[in-house]
């Protein structure tokens, strides 16, 4: 009776340690990192995708890879410091940092009535723009520019052949007009020239600035 219990426990432990990604040691280290850090207002998830022309929405979503969800400032940097800068990864790739675990697709429930501002910038500015917007997002500095009831839900950078595209996602497209996020971005990055700025809601025509 007792022996069979022991065997059962051992079997279970073996099963856990067999996992290549989440063994006991990794889980412990993860816990310690997240405990020691300075907490963020909300968790944020890093995503990566590769856009291939002519793919369906479903195929695109399948190419979307979750890198990691961070809860602390240190957790944020431990990902940011250890992934290639946008200037190094190939064109057609995109990085996203989305609030909680929102997926950077229109199909995600959190984006169902949302939209995003799209800013095009020269390639030599992309790394700086991406970093500054991430810091403003996790520091909740962009939230100050939103209308009541609206929220920043993510930042994306898409590497393209010519100018790169930065996206700032919000949860309420109908409130986007009241937001002052574009002027905030320009004040954060006074030396950067954006070659195009417009807003696109999920079910609206784009509005150019």
């Amino acid at each position, binding site marked *: 009776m007792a022996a069979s219990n022991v065997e059962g426990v051992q079997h279970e432990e073996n099963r856990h340690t067999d996992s290549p990604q989440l063994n006991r*040691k990794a889980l412990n280290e993860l816990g310690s990192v997240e405990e020691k850090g300075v*907490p963020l207002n909300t968790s944020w998830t890093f995503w990566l995708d590769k856009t291939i022309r002519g793919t369906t929405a479903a195929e695109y979503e399948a190419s979307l890879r979750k890198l990691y969800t961070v809860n602390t400032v*240190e*957790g944020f940097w*431990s990902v940011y410091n250890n992934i290639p800068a946008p200037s190094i*990864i190939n064109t057609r790739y995109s990085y996203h940092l989305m609030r909680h675990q929102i997926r950077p697709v229109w199909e995600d429930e959190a984006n169902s009535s949302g939209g995003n501002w799209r800013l095009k910038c020269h390639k030599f500015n992309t790394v700086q723009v991406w970093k500054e917007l991430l810091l403003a997002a996790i*520091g*909740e500095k962009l939230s100050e520019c939103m209308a009541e009831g609206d929220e920043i839900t993510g930042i994306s950078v898409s590497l393209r052949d010519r100018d790169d595209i930065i996206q700032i996602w919000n949860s309420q497209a109908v409130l986007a007009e009241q937001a002052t996020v574009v002027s905030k971005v320009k004040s954060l990055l006074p030396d950067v020239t954006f070659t195009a700025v417009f807003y696109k809601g999920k079910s609206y025509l784009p509005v150019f600035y």
Partner: protein
Amino acid sequence: MSAKESVSLGREIPATRRVILHDAAHMPNDYSSTPGGTIFSTTPGGTRIVYDRAFLLQCRNSPLTKSPPPNMAKIPGVTTPAEKGSPKVNGNPECKTVAEKPENPGDEPQFEMDI
């Protein structure tokens, strides 16, 4: 004994958020901020923790940020080095030790006595 107990009973103030700083560099730059950020309880969306750019950048040099999270997604060419054209010279012995591991559980019954 019982009188002493009733006196020493105490509870923490609820809704306290503890921020443990491991480095003096994490202290705020001015007296209007609290360590670990500033909480505005009167923002329209409710309580929100905000951080200045300078504070976030200070945290970048924390020892915790030198290596990626242990279970971050492994994507060759992005989060892990791209696969090299030529295989490593000592690649095979590594594979062998991994393959041998499943044989070890055969020895385990000896240790059941300890439990």
